[in-house]
């Protein structure tokens, strides 16, 4: 095994998939000569040439649509959108076209493409560059949305996304690019993951914490702290936002009897709302306390560092919500959290 960054895992996986399949090509702004805003495509233009690593004009609707059209003829384009905020310029092509073409024409033409894009606040990028709008895509049948949190998952899910015959939105996170994890020495040995499955990344018995992407890490950090206090928290990393693995979520909550959702997006109508609704329908009789959600404050994210930090969910805010939820269960065995 080798320890590499999330960024390196993405880059090496893209390269491995391009070597494996001639139909795989990359498209996006500044991915070639500039080697990517976040250097995910470093060295790939040199290795594969302009035919397979295409710098596009600043025209998200145009080049995302072009990728869809190319996918209709059997290519497997992997599009990079510089940040998920810019995906809004391609919303019509993603929602009205990529997501519709297979079904709307009676299953005649699949659209095998991937849109890679990072979300994430906390970089003082201001209101328009710090959003987490994966919900918009998770809402749409016909799309698949995945959100890996570790280098290994990133590699396994990227392979799955590229080999899948449907359009997949592949959510990355600015805060994760430099995080490290173990992967096989040869990235080609990573098995593609199954899209649509969550993972229990830490087993526990007292409470379930559900997160994805950056918040899956925060959830693990909080679970670790709680362990020191004698609380056994289970962590569910969603990995796939659409389809959503409801079975895994509900099975966990039926075991622990309480749940907190940690999400980087806004609370109202957010990913956590769907999970909370799922839990109330699937584990109502097992719940000892209301399901809580920890999410971004309902504001356009400010530039000011103290304001930004106050608005973003953190380990501290998650810990607070978990403790309050545990107290609300009224279980006498959990005295340490009082």
């Amino acid at each position, binding site marked *: 095994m080798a320890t590499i960054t999330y960024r390196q895992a993405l880059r090496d996986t893209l390269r491995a998939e391009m070597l494996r399949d001639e139909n795989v090509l990359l498209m996006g702004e500044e991915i070639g000569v500039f080697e990517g805003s976040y250097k995910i495509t470093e060295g790939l233009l040199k290795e594969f040439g302009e035919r397979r690593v295409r710098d596009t004009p600043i025209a998200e609707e145009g080049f995302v649509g072009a990728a*869809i*059209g190319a996918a209709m003829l059997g290519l497997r384009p992997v599009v990079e959108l510089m940040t998920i905020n810019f995906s809004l310029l391609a919303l*019509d092509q993603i929602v009205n076209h990529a997501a519709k073409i297979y079904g709307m024409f*009676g*299953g005649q*033409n699949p659209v095998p493409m991937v849109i890679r894009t990072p979300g994430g606040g906390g970089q003082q990028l201001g209101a328009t560059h710090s959003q987490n709008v994966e919900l918009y895509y998770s809402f749409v049948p016909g799309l698949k949305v995945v959100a890996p949190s570790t280098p290994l998952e990133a590699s396994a899910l990227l392979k799955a996304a590229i080999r899948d015959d449907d359009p997949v939105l592949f959510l990355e996170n600015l805060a994760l690019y430099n995080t490290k994890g173990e992967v096989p020495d040869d990235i080609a040995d990573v098995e593609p993951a199954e899209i649509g499955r969550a993972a229990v990344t830490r087993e526990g018995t007292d409470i379930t914490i559900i997160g994805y992407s950056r918040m899956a890490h925060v959830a693990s950090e909080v679970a670790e702290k709680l362990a020191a206090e004698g609380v056994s928290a289970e962590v569910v990393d969603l990995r796939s936002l659409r389809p959503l693995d409801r079975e895994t979520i509900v099975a966990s909550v039926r075991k622990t009897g309480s749940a907190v959702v940690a999400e980087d997006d806004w609370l109202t109508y957010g990913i956590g709302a769907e999970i909370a609704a799922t839990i109330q329908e699937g584990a109502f009789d097992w719940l000892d306390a209301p399901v809580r959600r920890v999410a971004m404050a309902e504001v356009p994210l400010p530039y000011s560092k103290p304001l930004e930090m106050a608005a973003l969910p953190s380990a501290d805010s998650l810990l607070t919500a978990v403790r309050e939820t545990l107290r609300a269960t009224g279980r006498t065995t959990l005295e340490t959290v009082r």
Partner: protein
Amino acid sequence: MAETTKAAPGRARRSPGSTSTRGTAGKGTPKPADNRASAVARRKADDEARVEYFRQMLLVRRFEERTAWAYTEAKIGGYCHLNLGEEATVVGLMAALRPTDYLFTNYREHGYAIAKGIEPRRVMAELYGRSTGVSKGWGGSMHMFDTEARLLGGYGIVGGQLPLATGAAMAVSYRGGDDVVMVQMGEGTAAIGAFHESLNIAALWNLPVVFVIINNGLGMGTTVEHSAAEPELYKRGAAYRMASARVDGTDVIAVRDAAREAVERAREESRPYLLECTSPRLRGHSVVDPAKYRSKEEKEALKAADPLAKAQLELQEAGLLTAEDVERLEAEVAEIVADAAGFADDSPHPEVSTLFDYTYATPVPNDLPRLPADPLFRV
């Protein structure tokens, strides 16, 4: 309809804005001195084809009239936009394509589907929402698709088909093929961002795609002069160093020849092309639009611009078509249309059990095939 009269019948007007256009635009086009003689020769060679084009135009006309009727009978739902008045454009454009060339269209595409070689009964069945329709009843009037005929979709969102067609052309070029992609749109589409983005990308990447604007002068009720700062839309090609031309869309031969030149350039030189066809819209924007925004005089003038009547008159004057021929063709076409409507009527609706068949091409765990009242979990 002023735009229609600006284009000289039978002759494409080329963009003056593009220098690269000038150099090669004459390829395959006779020099002015030979113009008359060559035109006569060309017309002669086209005689048989012209009768066949007339037959196809007649088929599109009668098919669309039947469609309008079926709509009023509530056999067809949703939005329904007809190719009435555009028959010469539809048939002329399709005559310039090889069967292996790809076509993307907007939502006004019944005629294109037929002229691209799809059986009229499968087009009508789609309009009726039946499982035997081209899109198995999932698309309807605006969303016809057929892999074999390489009609890669009618699209309901204005401009949505343009980036797709650009990408399809990219795939052709990526694989070194010699197919051409044609993408049709209405003149209102020239105002949307996807138009600019697609033409820019197509020209930058030298893609074999022909952008065709059908300019009928009206959005729904908005005139082209009210929506386009440069209403001579073909001139926009110059902004992308893209060859472009405007042609009288009521003249099937003129359309075919202009389209052939555009397609040729895409195929031989892998360069995109912008072709504008001026064509009247004989009726409202859709079946339910009575077109009250048009004056009586305008409506009368439209009758004179009817491409089908014009083609018939020309063919009869040229001695290529007799009154008996017309009668025979009418009967032939009437039978095809009646068969299509009968087939559609007799075809089954899709089974409700197939509702979840086309959400994903690659099956995936935890997909949610639930009907509105189904619970998430059986507790």
